[in-house]
């Protein structure tokens, strides 16, 4: 125990040595309880030891100095000719028998579901303007697009992603959160 020479008060052992640590702990705890500090400062991800030393060599081995092997076509020319001739005969026979047994496939034969799934799974990377150019507006009714009621959440998400400053729309906070 530490004694004060001028009076009879004393403090627990190591009190002043530990004071700073305890104070910092308390500040951190209080900050954590306040709203602003509720989000942790770090996210806990780690990497294997020495990873960043190895990655450079890995990438360099896949890029710099990697030449594509050229396979000469000339020496196998006769082989390719014979393969092409056999393939041509097969295609000819197949197309003759195909035409005699069935009608040619038309656009109407495609199931709507197949077209929809193709459109959904293929990334066309088209802008709205490009789509507008290929879709004829004359054939469309306004109700085609307004058939489904959009959920509020979807509309707010869209505005959030696309509007320069959502606050300028003067929406009430509770409406878009």
């Amino acid at each position: 125990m530490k004694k004060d020479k001028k009076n009879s008060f004393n403090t627990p052992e190591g009190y002043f040595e530990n004071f700073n640590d305890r104070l910092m702990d308390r500040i951190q705890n209080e900050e954590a309880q306040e709203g602003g500090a509720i989000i942790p400062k770090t996210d806990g991800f780690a990497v294997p030891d020495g990873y960043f030393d190895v990655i450079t060599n890995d990438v360099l081995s896949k890029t710099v100095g990697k030449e594509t092997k050229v396979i000469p076509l000339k020496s196998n020319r006769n082989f390719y000719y014979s393969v092409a001739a056999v393939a041509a005969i097969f295609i000819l026979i197949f197309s003759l028998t195909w035409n005699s047994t069935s009608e040619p496939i038309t656009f109407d034969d495609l199931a709507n579901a197949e077209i929809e799934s193709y459109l959904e799974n293929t990334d066309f990377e088209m802008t709205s303007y490009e789509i507008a150019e290929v879709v004829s507006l004359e054939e469309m009714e306004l109700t085609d697009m307004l058939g489904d009621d959009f959920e509020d959440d979807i509309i707010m998400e869209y505005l959030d992603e696309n509007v320069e400053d959502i606050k300028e729309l003067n929406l009430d906070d509770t409406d878009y959160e």
Partner: protein
Amino acid sequence: MNTYKERLYWHIRRIVLNHDDTDDVLQNTFIKVYRNIEKFKGDSKLYSWMYRIATNESLTFLKKKSKKMGVSDQELKDRMVENLQADVYFDGDEIQLKLQKALATLPDKQKLVFTMKYFQEMKYKDISEALDTSVGALKTSYHLAVKKIEAYLKEN
């Protein structure tokens, strides 16, 4: 390459979450940078351009992964967070795991802005170049992201 590898690694890691996938995407990013460096126009900073490639590579990677697994994008994100609990390269405690769960509920843009600003401490101007979005829109996204994350952490 040495200058950027760590920054890009952490950027990608916060999108794809596990180390092995990050390693794949980081290598693809550098290969793409190497092959396209002649096309770099110089009208943005080199690292903004690299960030843009890394972001696109990461998001494409996740899209391919969800398609391959036959699950929705959201389902994949939920599974990725669940897998963190068994990940040897994730030292996060309970609150850090909850943070990842909260981040998984955000739209891609909000999540990207939040991690780039909060964890990578990037300036809005640099994020704007990397994500090709105006500073105003980024500030709104960040504000919404913080509110949603705080609300999630308080509720859970």
